[in-house]
């Protein structure tokens, strides 16, 4: 593995990484107990752990996790689909891309968060408004990567496929789409991350369920422990999603030379 650490020394790395976390938690806990940190504003790790444990014990957190997961998944799928379709259309039709170029640039430059209230008005407080918000974030990443991927296909590779008898549909299926897929996959971490950001921020701004809602509720009650507990659950969720993405990526990019696949520690 190109991690820079031989296998026997990777354990050493893990120990150091764990030590950093333990040191952080211990000094937080001590600071809070010795009143260097006001527990009302900073809570303490033991209270946070207790709260997280209670959430899982009573099962009340599962509903929130599953709503956020659903929103993330839908935003990712819808955003990617639209991004691929529009990216392809733009790459294949120079006229189309020339006409829409300024609008795409403006739409991409705009801070998407201002759209959240509008989406709440249009789609209500439920899942749909969060998905719409996530789509606006995911779409552009996938769109630009698809566009780039299709445009960057080597002329000779295309001509070779043509000489071998490829129809236009064959070219799309066997050459252009896989080539774009490489680019899309290379941004998979980013686009899934943005889908999650869309879901959580959307929930935070107005909803009745989800991890963003959980954190927002605690905050409204000045419940610092609840906010941190929400963050811990969210961090665990993000980590799980990221591991899943890495796994998918490694499966789909098996054909790549190893130096090109970024190894996630």
């Amino acid at each position: 593995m190109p991690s820079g650490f031989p296998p026997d020394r990777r354990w050493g790395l893990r120990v150091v990484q764990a030590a950093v976390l333990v040191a952080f938690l211990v000094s937080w806990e001590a600071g809070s107990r010795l009143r260097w940190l006001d527990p009302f504003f900073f809570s303490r790790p033991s209270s946070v752990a207790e709260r997280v444990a209670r959430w899982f014990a009573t099962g009340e957190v599962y509903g929130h996790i599953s709503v956020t997961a659903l929103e993330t998944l839908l935003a990712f799928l819808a955003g990617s689909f639209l991004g691929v379709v529009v990216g392809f259309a733009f790459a294949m039709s120079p006229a189309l891309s020339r006409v829409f170029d300024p609008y795409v640039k403006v739409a991409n430059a705009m801070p998407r968060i201002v759209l959240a209230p509008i989406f709440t008005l249009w789609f209500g407080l439920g899942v749909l408004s969060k998905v719409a918000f996530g789509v606006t974030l995911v779409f552009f990443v996938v769109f630009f990567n698809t566009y780039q991927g299709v445009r960057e296909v080597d002329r000779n590779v295309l001509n070779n496929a043509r000489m071998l008898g490829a129809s236009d549909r064959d070219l799309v299926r066997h050459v252009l789409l896989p080539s774009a897929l490489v680019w899309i996959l290379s941004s998979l971490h980013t686009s899934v991350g943005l889908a999650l950001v869309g879901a959580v921020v959307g929930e935070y701004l107005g909803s009745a369920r989800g991890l963003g809602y959980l954190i927002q509720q605690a905050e409204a009650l000045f419940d610092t422990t609840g906010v941190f507990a929400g963050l811990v659950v969210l961090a665990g969720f993000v980590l799980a999603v990221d591991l899943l993405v890495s796994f998918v990526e490694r499966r789909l990019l098996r054909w790549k030379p190893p130096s090109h696949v970024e190894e996630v520690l």
Partner: protein
Amino acid sequence: MKLASPPGTCAVRLRACRRSFRTPDGGVYVALDAVDLEVRAGEFVALVGPTGCGKSTLLNLVAGLLAPDAGQVEVFGSPLEGINRRAAYLFQQDVLLPWKTAEENVMLGLVFRRLPREEARRQARAWLERVGLRGFENRYPHQLSGGMRKRVALAQNLIVNPEILLMDEPFAALDVQTRQLMENDLLRIWQEERKTVLFVTHDLEEAIALSDRVVVLSAGPAARPVGEFPVDLPRPRDVTEVRLDPAFGELFRRIWELLRGEVLRAFRISA
């Protein structure tokens, strides 16, 4: 092996072909002009010329990837429109699809012809074996050496059983030993299949060692054939041994006399 087409017929004929390109500064560059060329069915013709003389352009005209501005390309007697369906094209560059295995790359042409997958796979395996790559079916291109990738590309082209094989400096990027092995393999396969071959190279020794006829192209702009030399060295040949034949040296001198002038002219134009 059956012959690809009856001998003696004309596989490729270019009549007064002209092709120009727009230059970035808005001008027009005439790459080829007044090109007449005939390649008989089953013949191995090598095309040599100084760099930038339009050899690849000529090949692209025959492939149908480019259309001539003036003149006509005929394939087995009928004018060519669009892609030349009776030809395969071995490119100088690496054109294998990196996300497909060697076997899947070789299958490609059959997949495009809607052959059943299993049949395509069976033929691809057989072809990989013929080019000496048995056991490498499931390797991806990046796991193969440059020479192996060329072999895969050769199998990829031959599996569609083309009547004409166009080759654009296919072995230029290989080291000398690998290159001679590939050249011998090409000759062996050609001997069995008797395809019509149009082989572009800037290496005169390679041209003589492989071909039945060497055509010299003048320096650009407006390049055209300026000399033809039949190569009557005995076949089957070994590209390393044939170079030791006195007739080889004599032929080399005669062609080089003409080619040298064109190379110098090209050098003066570009310098």
